[in-house]
């Protein structure tokens, strides 16, 4: 698909198509939804099958499940504090969903649902609404003091308040753009270099030898993309915890 007519078509991989044949087409069930469901099933399997033996000395899958759990638990408690345990299920779900989406998207023929801003902004909007509701529920009207730091001169309020409000509203946007842009950039790069392999491979006798170069780049890129996949899920989780910290402690 990529090398049709000797052009580089790096963006068609993000197009949505219907999955599950006519049934999927009837209810607008896309391959993006299909991979979301796959990720959810894989997460549930990792956690249930992994923790089924409840061994004192964990096996591989149990060790993986425990590592994920403890990693996010430490992150949430470290950022939000001890009362942050209430929000652990939320952050853990977000982290696993994004991590699995990024990692599953690296497999050939798979679709990366986190490469769509609609998905990432949806997740970021959930975080934004939740943190705002938590702050309102815990602090009531005092929450609005967040937009005007104590001790600032009152005549500066017309400048400070709009700036703080815009800064607060920019949080979900930066959260979603960061994840979306990273995933799109990585997959475009992979596709471009993969197309180079195909195009250069067709250049007569020397072609296959030159084509080894972009292939090497792609091998390195896959490793780098694995790092980015983990890192972006981590960044999303830690920023969610930071916002929850702000909501719980309000300053």
């Amino acid at each position, binding site marked *: 698909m990529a090398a049709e007519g000797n052009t580089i078509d790096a963006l068609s991989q993000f197009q949505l198509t219907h999955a599950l044949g006519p049934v999927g087409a009837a209810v607008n069930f896309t391959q993006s939804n299909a991979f979301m469901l796959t990720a959810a099933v894989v997460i549930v399997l990792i956690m249930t099958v992994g923790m089924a033996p409840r061994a004192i000395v964990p096996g591989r899958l149990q060790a993986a499940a425990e590592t994920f759990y403890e990693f996010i638990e430490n992150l949430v408690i470290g950022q939000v504090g001890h009362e942050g345990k209430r929000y652990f299920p939320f952050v853990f779900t977000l982290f696993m969903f994004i991590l699995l989406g990024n990692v599953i998207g690296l497999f050939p023929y798979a679709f990366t649902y986190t490469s769509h801003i609609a998905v990432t902004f949806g997740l970021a909007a959930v975080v934004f609404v939740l943190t705002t509701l938590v702050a309102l529920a815990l602090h009531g009207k005092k929450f609005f003091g967040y937009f005007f730091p104590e001790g600032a001169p009152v005549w500066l309020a017309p400048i400070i308040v709009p*700036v703080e409000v815009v800064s607060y509203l*920019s949080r979900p946007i930066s959260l979603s*753009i960061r994840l979306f842009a990273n995933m799109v950039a990585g997959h475009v790069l992979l596709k471009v270099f993969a197309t180079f392999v195909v195009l250069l491979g067709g250049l007569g006798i020397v072609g296959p030898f030159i084509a080894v170069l972009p292939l090497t780049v792609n091998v390195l890129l896959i490793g780098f993309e694995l790092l980015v996949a983990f890192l972006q899920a981590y960044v999303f989780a830690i920023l969610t915890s930071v916002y929850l910290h702000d909501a719980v402690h309000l300053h």
Partner: protein
Amino acid sequence: MNERDDFNERLRKARHRQGLDQNARGADGEGQGGLPASALRIGLRAGVEVVSALIAGAGIGWLIDRWLGTFPWLFMLFFAIGGVAGVLNVYRLFTPRKGARK
């Protein structure tokens, strides 16, 4: 027990030799999320912060304009406010979280 103390001592020395302890400390003290400081990554994060604040500001301005029918003016005002908020976001990115704002 003595054996374990010995091991811990050797582990500490080895970590010190490889510079692992120092790395851990540097990563903890850095930025908002405690990410390791890489110039490119910090630059990208700052860029995203500025752009998203601009989008938020311009979006709010445009919406209020559409509501009140005063098209370019509030859009321009909130675009500027978005720019200020972007600078504020970057400033917060580089100030340590605790202590900076009480």
